């Protein structure tokens, strides 16, 4: 496969939610692409449109809750936003699969693991009970659950959080999707299990060649498995770079703020009690259409007058690194 040809290409995506007080713009003019076999991470704090992006790729945001208003999502030569319901249904789970944040509640509590896995196969293929059962065992084996055959008879409550997330991953991969959307796959898990699940994801990616779109707020997770990163703020892409570039040379003040907000081994740790993590003051503004200019302006330490007048265009830093900021270097 041609590695230069993107697997999925999102152009100028716009997603609005219908709130009580009027429409809220959750994703605004977002463009990105994912190449085959690549892991792209979307980072940002709560409410900045990461999950809305993920959901709209599968067209799970439907009226009356909200809708995707503009742009296109090109996948396999089709624009997903233009597909008929049945065509879209065939894409979901078979070509683009998704794993959710909460492994505790994303499995059906009254169906056995086996039933849920085979059900996912049979939604898309006219497979017999036996074929789909074998496929389920194969996948449980692949995600590293011990004794897959006996796991099939278990109910979700009998499994731990980490095991459930493995089941979710198995379920997502059972139809061999070419894109896996992982929406905060490790947020609800404790740290040791997080590492295991991340390892598993990258191992599976090598084995199956699936692209992964990773949604997270945890830069540690990004560093672990992503090759490229998009930083989102208030529904906008503010910075895009390879993981190495982003960590070496963060450009956008928001990205730097995110990085400063996490603890660093070796730096402040010497005087743990006095050291205070830096926070970004303020909150993400609600994008109800009244705001002009850069949404980060109110919280930004490098703010200029022009920041309040228009949203900055993307500026290329290097070929693989671009940032949307008028004043990344803090000139006054």
């Amino acid at each position, binding site marked *: 496969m041609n590695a230069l040809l993107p697997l999925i290409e999102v152009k100028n995506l716009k997603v609005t939610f219908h709130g009580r007080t009027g429409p809220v713009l959750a994703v605004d003019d977002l463009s990105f692409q994912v190449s085959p076999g690549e892991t792209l991470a979307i980072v940002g704090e709560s409410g900045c449109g990461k999950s809305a992006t993920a959901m709209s790729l599968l067209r799970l945001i439907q009226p009356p809750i909200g809708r995707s208003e503009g742009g296109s999502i090109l996948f396999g030569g089709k624009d997903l936003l233009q597909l008929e319901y049945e065509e879209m249904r065939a894409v979901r*789970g078979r070509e683009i699969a*998704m794993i959710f944040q*909460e492994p505790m*509640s994303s*499995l059906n*509590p009254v169906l056995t693991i086996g039933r849920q896995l085979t059900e996912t196969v049979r*939604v898309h293929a006219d497979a017999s009970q036996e074929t789909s059962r074998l496929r389920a065992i194969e996948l449980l084996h692949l995600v590293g659950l011990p004794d897959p055959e006996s796991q099939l008879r278990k*109910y979700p409550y009998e499994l731990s959080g980490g095991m459930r997330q493995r089941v979710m991953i198995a379920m997502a991969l059972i139809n061999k999707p070419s894109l896996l959307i992982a929406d905060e796959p490790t947020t609800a898990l404790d740290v040791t299990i997080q590492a295991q699940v991340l390892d598993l994801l990258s191992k599976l990616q090598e084995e199956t060649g699936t692209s992964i779109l990773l949604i997270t707020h945890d830069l540690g997770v990004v560093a672990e498995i992503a090759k490229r990163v998009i930083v989102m703020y208030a529904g906008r892409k503010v910075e895009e770079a390879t993981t190495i570039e982003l960590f070496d040379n963060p450009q956008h003040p928001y990205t730097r703020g995110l990085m400063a907000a996490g603890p660093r081994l070796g730096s402040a740790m010497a005087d743990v009690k006095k050291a205070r993590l830096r926070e970004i003051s303020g909150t993400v503004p609600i994008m109800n259409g009244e705001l002009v200019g850069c949404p980060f302006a109110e919280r930004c330490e490098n703010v200029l007058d022009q920041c309040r007048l228009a949203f900055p265009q993307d500026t290329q830093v290097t070929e693989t690194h671009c940032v949307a900021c008028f004043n990344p270097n803090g000139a006054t």
Partner: protein
Amino acid sequence: MSMISRIFGFCLRYPLVGISTLILLALLFVSLFAPFLWTVDPLQISPATRLRPPSLEHWFGTDALGRDIYSRVVYGTRTSLFIGFVVTLVSYAFGIAIGFLSAFNRFADTVLMRIIDGVMSIPSVLLAISLTALAEPGIWIVILAISIIEIPRVTRLVRGMSLALRDALFIEAAYASGTSTWRTLFRHILPNISAPMFVQASQICAQAMLIEATLSFIGAGVPPSNPTWGNIIAEGRSLYQIAPYMILFAAMALAITVLAMNLLADGLRDALDPKLNRGG
């Protein structure tokens, strides 16, 4: 063999379910094999042997027209169970359909729920009486009337539970993996609400038999030519001081059946909870 031992083990773990199922199976047996259980024609009038107390010849005695009460009670089992089961089936078929529709379609919800509210606001027996008055008396109009009373209760249950589940993450996950709405309803939501539904179904079945008895008792139910426990009691009511056995046996049959149904409901509630299910 393993099937039998599993059922046996299940009944030991949930004795309520075991006992009540046994009683209900016995009643089913009685209603299916009524003609072979030493009965005579339940409609056979014999003025010479009226109002006889229980004896070897007439186990439960005879009524004011000399009909054998034992035979009438046994045949009445048929009608009463039939009404109970058919009402349960009909009210669930409609209740699930309407409940799902209103849980997943806002417009339908507004319209359907107002209708349901309207039906629920009319006293149930009153509604049934007026419905049975509209048509020629018979078993089907009784079934229809009781079903109309019970449908709103099923609908409310199904709608309420589906609404709670509609936004559950695993339902979203089901959609995200390409499951159609139809399939999601029946493969994911229905199994989640089936436990309370079974519990309510046995209550509705019991309720239906009681309403039928009430209707027959006040003369708006199944005509006496088709014996039910309700109309047997109704016929015995004026003579109960001199012939209490006319009411006694039919009332006992009704009480035992309703009790068994309610016990079944109670036991099922425990047995169907997957978190308490110890590998049955």
